[in-house]
């Protein structure tokens, strides 16, 4: 007997349909799985055999051949267990259902027949919908995630018996529903709010500008000055994610297996803060069994590199291309796959080795040369991607104790949304969405200065000793500041403020 059951595999962040073909014939008893499976797939045999037997069903003592088609695509993980078991049960007519091709099965089996959760459910469910499949059968712990996909019947199960009873018409499983709109709107809340940050008017302003134009930024300040604190609050002032963005972020987190239990959708922009000892692979993704790296987990959110001078030069170097392209491409032997990586990059650094260079209350024990060298390490490729430099001074005790009301993130976000909307409208059809993405040719068009503006910029370069790389960055940031004020042209004040955000280009930092 031959049977065909549908399941789903993953490449990059997308699913593809896998057809599980089961052939059972007479001959010396054997159990073979072909179709480029990895170890976990091959070990599937043992789990399936035990699960079927322990459920009280018959495991055929014949020659069993399973083919996972398409056979040229590498397959990994334990998510095919359920479909393999059902293939055998169908081929031996223990399961009878004429509409099986309208089903897709995902799940790992335990030896006693329980169905256990797997990673990557969301992309698989999306893939099922696109392939015209009506029902998706999956572990109950994954139900919330799949139920986000509208137009698909989600049938959650605990064990093999439940699905057999359903397919044989003995005890149908109820379709699983969630209130997607409700979840989407109610879940957008940030525990961390800018209102917690006392004082720091200049830092907040700079971050609002950064958020408004999606500009990468670096914060330089002594330990304890609040860099980490404000960075963590940055997602709360970024524009709210659209449903499509949320889906994409959830897909990535699902594949990486870091989606929290009972979560159907990630609705807040991610904030990822990898430690400086992180490996290159964990940072950008890849590995023998490819997984998205931190930069992809931060997709549509914030990638925060705290104490960035401590990161290895190599790690910073591998970030360069993905940051440029917004995507990580991983080459495999017989294919290449990609993970999206459109994150806003936020760096934090102490001003010098001892950390006290900007602190008025403590002594910096570094020589001028050491001060230069410390941040000098960052120069080049990475600093070239940073539009905004922010110097963070510690707030005084007095201000920390003050009960003066600080502005809430929601209010700031409203303004940011407005500025982003202007950019979206302006760049329609240009394949860019924010000022930070402006290419040199576009800068000439969209960031025009009048004569006075040109004069101001020229004298800033002369008198402040800015380095040449600052030029285009100042113009982009000035464009954002003008957008924040809903001004068509870049006025002198906009340009002047933008010049303030290039402090690391100044003489006192780079000698």
């Amino acid at each position, binding site marked *: 007997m031959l049977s065909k059951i549908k399941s789903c595999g993953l490449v990059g962040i997308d699913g593809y349909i896998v057809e599980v073909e089961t052939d059972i014939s007479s001959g010396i008893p054997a159990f073979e799985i072909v179709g480029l499976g990895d170890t976990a797939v091959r070990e599937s045999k043992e789990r399936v055999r035990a699960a079927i037997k322990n459920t009280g069903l018959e495991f055929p003592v014949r020659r069993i051949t399973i083919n996972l088609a398409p056979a040229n695509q590498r397959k990994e993980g334990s998510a095919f267990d359920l479909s393999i078991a059902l293939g055998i049960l169908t081929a031996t007519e223990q399961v009878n259902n004429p509409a099986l091709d309208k089903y897709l099965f995902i799940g790992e089996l335990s030896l006693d027949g329980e169905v256990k959760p797997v990673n990557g459910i969301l992309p698989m469910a999306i893939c099922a919908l696109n392939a015209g499949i009506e029902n998706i059968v999956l572990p109950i712990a994954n139900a919330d995630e799949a139920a986000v996909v509208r137009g698909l019947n989600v049938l959650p199960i605990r064990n093999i018996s439940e699905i057999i009873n359903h397919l044989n018409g003995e005890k149908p499983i109820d379709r699983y529903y969630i209130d997607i709109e409700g979840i989407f709107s109610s879940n957008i809340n940030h525990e961390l709010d800018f209102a917690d940050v006392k*004082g*720091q*008017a*200049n830092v*907040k*302003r700079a971050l609002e500008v950064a958020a408004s134009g999606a500009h990468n930024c670096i914060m330089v300040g002594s330990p304890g000055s609040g860099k980490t604190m404000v960075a963590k609050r940055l997602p709360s002032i970024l524009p709210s994610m659209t449903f499509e963005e949320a889906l994409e972020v959830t897909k990535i987190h699902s594949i990486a297996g870091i989606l929290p239990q009972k979560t159907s959708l990630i609705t807040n922009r991610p904030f990822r803060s990898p430690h400086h000892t992180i490996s290159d692979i964990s940072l950008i993704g890849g590995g023998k069994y490819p997984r998205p790296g931190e930069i992809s987990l931060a997709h549509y959110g914030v990638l925060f590199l705290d104490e960035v001078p401590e990161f290895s030069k190599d790690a910073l170097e591998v970030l360069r291309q993905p940051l440029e392209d917004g995507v990580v491409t991983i080459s495999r032997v017989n294919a290449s796959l990609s993970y999206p990586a459109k994150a806003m990059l936020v760096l934090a650094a102490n*001003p010098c080795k001892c950390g006290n*260079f*900007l602190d*008025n209350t403590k*002594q*910096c*024990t570094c*020589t*001028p*040369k050491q001060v230069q060298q410390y941040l000098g390490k960052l120069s080049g490729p990475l600093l070239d991607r940073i539009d905004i430099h922010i*110097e963070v*001074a510690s707030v005084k005790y007095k201000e920390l104790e003050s009960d003066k009301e600080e502005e809430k993130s929601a209010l700031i976000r409203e303004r940011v949304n407005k500025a982003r909307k202007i950019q979206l409208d302006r760049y329609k059809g240009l394949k860019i969405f924010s000022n930070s993405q402006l290419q040199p040719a576009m800068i000439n068009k969209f960031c025009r200065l009048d004569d006075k503006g040109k004069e*101001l910029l020229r*004298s*800033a370069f002369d*008198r*402040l000793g800015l380095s040449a790389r600052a030029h285009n960055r100042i113009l982009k940031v000035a464009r954002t*500041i003008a957008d924040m004020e809903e001004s068509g042209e870049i006025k*002198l*004040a*906009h340009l*002047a*403020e933008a*010049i*303030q955000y290039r*402090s690391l280009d*100044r003489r*006192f*930092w780079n000698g």
Partner: protein
Amino acid sequence: MGQHLIHWVWLNSVPGIGARRASQLLEYFECPENIWNARKEELSRLPFLTRKTIENLMDKKIRDESEKHLERIYNHKIKVITIKDDLYPCYLKSIYDAPPLLFVKGQVEKDEKTIAIVGSRRATSYGLDMAERIGYELSKLGVTVVSGMARGIDSRAHSGSLKAGGRTLAVLGCGLDTVYPPENKPLMQRIEESGAVISEYLPGVKPVAQNFPARNRIISGISLGVVIIEANEKSGSLITADFALEQGREVFAVPGNITSSNSKGTNKLIREGAKIVTDIDDILEEIKVHRSSNNKEHRLVVKKPQFDGLDSDERIIAEQLSIEPTHIDLLAEKSKINIQEMNAILIMMELRGIVEQLPGKIFKLKE
């Protein structure tokens, strides 16, 4: 120079012979050549020489080295002034452990009004500012500014003097073939051109820690008085102050903020009787330099900012900055100007040369 000098250089290089021993030997033998030729028995009769030192004085290897020292001195275009030379600075000559030899790049003068300015290597912007101003004002009045070319206060005192077009002397704790600290290479060059860089150490001697206290005695010894700006409790500047007192020099201290560790040493000096400096006249009085009577403004007190050509916002900012350098957040709060406008206004003022930006978004008035 030549034959005559080699004995001086030799004497300077003998282990165990410091400034004090050298001057005792010279008193007895009159010139280094006589010491070179002295017999062992003769040396043994001198109560201030140990047996080891006598061996060193007779040591052939040490004598042979002198040629090489001399060669290095020539190669680095270093001048040598002996304590018997007419040019030897007269104040320095008067201290009891005056160095027998001075290595010099630049010009020394025998008799000039000199004031030393020393202080912390890790000074605050206030301290640096005061160093530069006092250096500048003294030079404008024809006083030669002496310091140690160290980071912080020293360097700024030299550059203040150079800005005024004055003479300045740097006394180093290493041979003149070494620039220490290395980033001061351009500064050293300028000091050589408009004053002198001085050391009692032969070329090749590295800036090791034990040289610095000895160097400090020259700084105070060559000066009529020592101005100390920002010194914490364990600062080398306090050693210089001690030398100055022993040598009968005036000690001046610039008062500092009592909350700053950088002021602990200077404020202590004031408590112990050092002369407080709140005006350049406080220094001039003691060293009998008089400025022309029509020029009586208090030079160290920050001048009221020139408000001509400033609009009302700029004026408010300038007034605040005339009190003290201020962080941008505080400036915005005090002046009730919102932070984005403040950013823009400050850049404009900076470009017009009215304010200056320091690391950490702190602004100060530019003089």
